[in-house]
């Protein structure tokens, strides 16, 4: 017995030194803090034409849809040439294995029907790895002339479902179309789909026009024009292209007009006697009130989406900086503190960020910062970038980029809020001063 006891004692003591090989307590816990950022691969076989003569339209809609998604930089299309399976009928079940094999994570199928001048587009979105549909299939219909809008609507739905972001493809951009050399620039207002299609001209180039801005519903555009020989602000109705001036005192200059979210109030800059301040005017009554009273330059105002605050630029500190004040005027609070000069602030439609132009060390940047000025991030750098405008979902910024030198000209560029996917926006000729419309009904 003693023998055994001793053995057990030794054993027990030895066990005490052994690595405990008992069962685990609780699950294995790990933390994933880093991942990859890569475009999500998707496959989109041509939408199926379900009526005679719809073939070309179906192919076009498929193409626009795909370009919308890949244009965001967040998606990557797996070319149709790589598809194993095919979709010949909208209602036949999906062979997920075919799409998994080519590593498509999302699959979009659709059908197009044309009847007279009406076109109907329907689609389904599949999560390939889960082997199931993602959300319900939907159907849109409209005129054949507006087929691009329907492609954008489908793309918006797919985009929102997968990323969780708000949609933005079904929108337009108003801008200044430019021709001629730097010392003889002709400018006129133009409007186009966000992707550059369907360009129309809203004014002629007989006088300088600057910095148009959409109304909150996208039905009107405010802009500055020199047609009287002096810069004055005008409001233009997009549908009728009719316009009228907003009356300001004789001998003054007014410019940089922007709508308040209520679509009624216009905030702008008035320059007289060498001093520029910010004013607000009721667009119907024409009554105006002065919001800033400082001997410095105050300009480029922009409303917050809830209409309660205005961000603007002022050089009261000695250099251009950004300030925020209540919408009715009042003590402004400075929010920019970096090295350099800040201008053209624009409040994001999501209310969370302010985009701006920054000049520093001879370079221009488009940047964003939180509404209290923190977390400043620069997204671009070049000889001359300025005038950002937000997409309706607050995810993408479009701006003007001008190249230097005698041959220099302006173009529109867009960039994702993360700084990725910087690319040129397709326009007919040189372009500047873009303003992005809200999502169309």
């Amino acid at each position, binding site marked *: 017995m003693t023998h055994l006891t001793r053995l057990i004692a030794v054993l027990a003591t030895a066990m005490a030194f052994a690595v405990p090989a008992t069962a685990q307590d609780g699950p294995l816990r790990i933390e994933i803090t880093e991942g990859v950022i890569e475009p999500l691969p998707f496959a989109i076989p041509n939408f199926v034409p379900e009526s005679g003569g719809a073939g070309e339209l179906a192919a076009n809609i498929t193409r626009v849809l795909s370009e919308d998604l890949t244009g965001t930089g967040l998606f990557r299309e797996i070319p149709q040439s790589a598809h194993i399976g095919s979709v010949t009928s909208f209602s036949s079940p999906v062979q997920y294995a075919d799409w998994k094999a080519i590593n498509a994570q999302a699959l979009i199928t659709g059908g197009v029907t044309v009847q007279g001048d009406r076109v109907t587009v329907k689609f389904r979105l599949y999560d390939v790895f889960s082997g199931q549909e993602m959300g319900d299939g939907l159907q849109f219909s409209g005129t054949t002339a507006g087929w691009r809008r329907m492609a954008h609507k489908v793309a918006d739905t797919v985009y929102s479902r997968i990323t969780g972001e708000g949609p933005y493809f079904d929108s337009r951009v108003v801008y200044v179309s430019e021709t001629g*050399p*730097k*010392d003889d*620039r002709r400018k006129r207002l133009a409007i186009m789909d966000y992707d550059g299609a369907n360009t129309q001209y809203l004014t002629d180039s007989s006088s*300088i026009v*600057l*910095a148009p801005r959409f109304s909150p519903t996208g039905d009107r555009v405010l802009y500055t024009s020199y047609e009287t*020989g*002096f*810069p004055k602000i005008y409001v233009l109705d997009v549908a009728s292209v009719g316009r009228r001036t907003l009356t300001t005192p004789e*001998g003054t*200059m007014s*410019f*940089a007009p922007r709508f308040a979210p209520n679509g009624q109030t216009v905030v702008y*800059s008035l*320059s007289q*006697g*060498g*001093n*520029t301040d910010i004013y607000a005017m009721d667009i119907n009554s024409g009554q105006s009130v002065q919001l800033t009273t400082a001997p410095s*330059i105050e*300009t*480029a105002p922009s409303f917050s989406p809830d209409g309660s605050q205005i961000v603007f*630029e002022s*050089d009261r500190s000695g250099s*251009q900086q950004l300030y925020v004040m209540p919408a009715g005027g009042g003590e402004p609070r400075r929010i920019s503190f970096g090295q350099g000069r800040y*201008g*053209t602030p624009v409040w994001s439609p999501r209310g969370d960020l302010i985009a701006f*132009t920054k*000049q520093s060390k001879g370079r221009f940047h488009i940047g964003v910062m939180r509404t209290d000025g923190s977390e400043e991030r620069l997204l671009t750098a070049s*000889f*001359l970038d*300025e*005038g950002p405008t937000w997409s309706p979902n607050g995810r993408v910024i479009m701006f003007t980029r*001008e190249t*230097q*030198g*005698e041959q*220099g000209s302006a173009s529109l560029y867009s960039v994702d809020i993360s700084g990725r996917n910087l690319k040129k926006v397709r326009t007919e000729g040189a372009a500047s*001063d873009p303003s992005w419309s809200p999502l169309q009904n």
Partner: protein
Amino acid sequence: MTRAALTLMAVLAVAACDKGRRFDNNVNLGAGANGAVVPGSANDPASPLYFQQSVGDRVLFAVDQHTLSDSARAVLNAQAQWLMTNADYTAVIEGHADEQGTREYNLALGGRRANAVREYLITQGVSAARLKTVSYGKERPIEICSVESCYEKNRRAVTVLAAGAIS
């Protein structure tokens, strides 16, 4: 008879002006028979061309500034002189900026420069009612290279004459 009529007309024409020496003894019939000054040409000290080329219709500014340098003031003194001599002109002072700035700010800056010129001319005796200001910001550069030698020429305020006396 004819000569008398003409002389009368000349006297009357001259009488309307304060110190008008616009019309010479030769009332614009025949080109400068005296051979000296052609009215309306750059030779004519009372012509806008003369104002532009000999007096100097513009002043330049430093980057981001709207203060007048000494040389600028010298030019503006001459401008003021001319304007008071030729009182039947009004002027629009155009302010400009170079391209190294954002659009709205440059508009405002041009306005500051134009206003600086205007206020100085007023201190020199020119009637305020004759002077208007406008700003073109960076929209109307005259030099288009993207270096300082061009930029400095674009940072300007130009006094543009317009005929028409203030009644």
